[in-house]
C-alpha cells in the first residue's frame, strides 16, 4: 500500500528484530474470539485514476452545483480569491497539528491571533476565540455560556432565527436545565418585532436574535440590547451571513454581549454544508467563560514576541467535566481560509463586496416585485436576502426554474416553516451578474 513507507520485506525484518514471526502476533492481546476472521467487507482498493473517475462522476451527478444560484439561508456563494486555497494548501498549514508546542507552531499561532483580532474588529467585540465548528453550534455554546454567566435558566429566542440553528440549540440545552422559549416575529416587517423585547424578565439569561435574520431582515439590535440589559439579561446575536458585517453596524457597537457567526462567507466554499467555521466573540469581562481555544501574546527569555494557547484552564483537558465546553478540535484550517480572505480583501474589499451584495439584492427585489403575481411580503430592511411571495406553490415553481431554466432561484420557506407555501427566500451576492439576475426575473415571469 503506497502510503505505508516500509515495504512488506522491511516490515518482516522489523518484526524479526523485535522477536516476532508474524504480524498476527502483534495482536496477541486481543482475544481470538474478538478478532475478525474474515477480510473487511469494504470495497477493494482503487488506483488514483479509478478513484478520480468515480468521484468525478459522482460530482457530475450534482446538477445543482452547475447552475446559476440564488441560494442562501445559512450558506452563501461569494467570490473566493485564488490565493486562499493556495495558502491553505501549503503543507505547513494543513498537515500541521494543533499548536500545543508553540516553539514549532508559530505559523499557526500567529495566524489564529490575527483571526481573533479580525473577528473582534468585524463584530465590534473585545475578545474572540480560535473558532467553533460553525455558526449553529457556536450559537448553542453562546446560550450555555449565557446561563453560566447569569445563573438564570430562561433563554428567549426570536422565531426568525435560522430554524436549523434553533434545532441545534434545542439539542444542546435539553439536559442543561435551560428553558428555551420562542418569541413570534412581526408578520408585517419580518423582523423580531416587539414580542422578543417584551418577553424578557428577571429570570431571563439571554435574548437570542439573528441579524440579518432567516428572512434576510435586519434587526434593531440596539433596542434589543437595551431591553435585555434593563432586566439584567444578555443579548446574544447570531449572524449567518458574515458579509453583512462589512456594511451593517457591528453587534458590539449596538450593545451585544456575545456574538456568534458563521464565517463561511469569508473564503470558504459551499461544499455541501461543511467544513465551515464558527466565529465567537464577547466582552473582555466574560473572557474566562468563553468556550474553545484562545491564542495570546507571550515572550520568551530573550524578549522575543511569540504566541501561545492560553487560558487553557477553561478547557476540557484540564477542567474536564467543569470545562466551559467539551470542544477540542475546532476548524483551524477554515479559520485560516477566512483570515486569508479578510486580509486579501481587506478594509476596502470587504466593504465593496458587501455593498455590491446590497445593491444587487435591491435591484433583484425591485425587479421581482414588479412582476405580476409576485410581491415582497416583509417590509423590513434587508441586506442580501429577502422573501418573495409568488403566485403559486414555491416548491413547484423553484423545481421548474431548476429543471427548465437551470437556475437555483431560491429556497422554499415551506421546507422550514409550515403554511408558507408560496414564499421563497432569494439571496443575491456580488457573484450574481446583472445578466443572471435578469434571467431569473425573465424566467419567473415566464413560469
Amino acid at each position: 500500500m503506497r502510503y505505508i513507507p516500509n515495504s512488506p520485506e522491511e516490515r518482516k525484518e522489523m518484526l524479526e528484530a523485535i522477536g516476532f514471526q508474524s504480524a498476527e502476533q502483534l495482536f496477541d492481546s486481543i482475544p481470538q474470539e474478538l478478532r475478525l476472521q474474515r477480510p473487511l467487507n469494504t470495497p477493494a482498493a482503487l488506483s488514483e485514476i479509478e478513484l478520480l473517475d468515480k468521484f468525478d462522476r459522482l460530482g457530475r451527478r450534482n446538477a445543482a452545483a452547475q447552475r446559476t444560484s440564488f441560494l442562501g439561508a445559512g450558506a452563501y456563494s461569494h467570490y473566493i480569491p485564488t490565493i486562499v486555497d493556495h495558502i491553505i494548501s501549503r503543507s505547513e498549514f494543513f498537515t500541521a497539528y494543533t499548536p500545543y508546542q508553540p516553539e514549532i507552531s508559530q505559523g499557526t499561532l500567529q495566524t489564529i491571533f490575527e483571526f481573533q483580532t479580525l473577528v473582534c474588529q468585524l463584530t465590534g467585540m473585545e475578545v474572540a476565540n480560535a473558532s467553533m465548528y460553525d455558526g449553529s453550534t457556536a450559537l448553542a455554546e453562546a446560550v450555555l455560556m449565557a446561563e453560566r454567566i447569569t445563573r438564570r435558566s430562561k433563554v428567549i429566542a426570536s422565531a426568525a432565527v435560522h430554524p436549523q440553528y434553533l434545532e441545534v440549540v434545542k439539542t444542546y440545552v435539553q439536559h442543561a436545565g435551560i428553558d428555551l422559549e420562542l418569541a413570534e416575529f412581526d408578520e408585517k416587517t419580518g423582523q423580531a418585532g416587539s414580542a422578543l423585547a417584551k418577553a424578557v424578565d428577571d429570570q431571563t439569561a439571554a435574548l437570542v436574535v439573528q441579524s440579518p435574520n432567516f428572512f434576510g431582515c435586519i434587526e434593531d439590535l440596539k433596542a434589543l440590547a437595551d431591553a435585555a440589559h434593563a432586566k439584567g439579561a444578555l443579548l446574544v446575536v447570531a449572524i449567518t451571513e458574515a458579509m453583512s458585517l462589512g456594511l451593517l453596524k457591528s453587534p458590539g457597537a449596538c450593545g451585544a454581549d456575545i456574538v456568534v457567526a458563521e464565517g463561511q462567507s469569508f473564503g470558504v466554499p459551499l461544499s455541501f454544508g461543511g467544513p465551515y467555521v464558527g466565529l465567537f466573540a464577547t466582552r473582555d469581562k466574560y473572557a474566562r467563560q468563553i468556550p474553545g481555544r484562545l491564542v495570546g501574546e507571550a515572550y520568551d527569555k530573550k524578549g522575543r514576541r511569540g504566541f501561545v494557547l492560553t487560558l487553557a484552564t477553561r478547557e476540557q483537558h484540564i477542567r474536564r467535566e467543569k470545562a466551559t465546553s467539551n470542544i477540542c478540535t475546532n476548524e483551524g484550517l477554515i479559520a485560516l481560509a477566512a483570515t486569508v480572505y479578510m486580509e486579501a480583501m481587506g478594509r476596502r474589499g470587504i466593504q465593496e463586496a458587501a455593498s455590491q451584495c446590497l445593491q444587487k439584492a435591491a435591484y433583484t427585489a425591485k425587479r421581482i416585485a414588479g412582476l405580476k403575481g409576485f410581491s415582497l411580503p416583509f417590509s423590513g430592511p434587508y441586506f442580501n436576502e429577502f422573501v418573495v411571495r409568488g403566485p403559486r406553490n414555491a416548491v413547484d415553481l423553484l423545481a421548474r426554474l431548476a429543471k427548465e431554466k437551470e437556475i437555483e432561484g431560491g429556497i422554499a420557506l415551506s421546507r422550514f416553516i409550515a403554511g408558507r407555501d408560496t414564499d421563497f427566500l432569494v439571496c443575491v451576492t456580488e457573484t450574481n451578474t446583472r445578466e443572471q439576475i435578469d434571467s431569473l426575473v425573465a424566467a419567473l415571469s415566464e413560469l
Partner: protein
Amino acid sequence: MANVPEDLHYSKDHEWVRVEGDQAIIGITDYAQNSLGDVVYVELPKTGEDFAANEPFGSVESVKAVSEVFTPVAGSVVTINESLADEPEKVNTAPYGEGWMIRLKMANPGDVDSLLTAAEYEDFTKAESE
C-alpha cells in the same frame, strides 16, 4: 523545605487559617503553591457569601492546572483579597502574607480545634510526598 508558620491552623487540603477574634483569614500553604506552580488566576467568592466547613469557596489556576480551594471553617465572607485579581503571583511569593484569600466571620469558632497544628501539618505533607 516548605515554610509552615507555627501560629496558624492547617487543613489536609493545604489551606491555612489565621484566627483574629471571631474572624478567620484563609489562604493556601507554601507546600500547595509550590505544587501548583506559577499562579495565574484566583477565583474568589463575593462578600456576604456563606460557606460550611470544607466547602469549596473558589479556585486557584496555574497555566496547566486548576485546584479548588476549600474553607476549613464555616463562616460568612467579610472581605476578599482584591489585589489578587491584578497580582495573583502573590500566592506564590507570599502565601501566608499578601497572598491571603478571604476573611470570614466564623459561624463556629470551635471549628479550628479540629484542624492540624503546624507540626501535624508538616508531618502530613512529609507523608504525602513519599
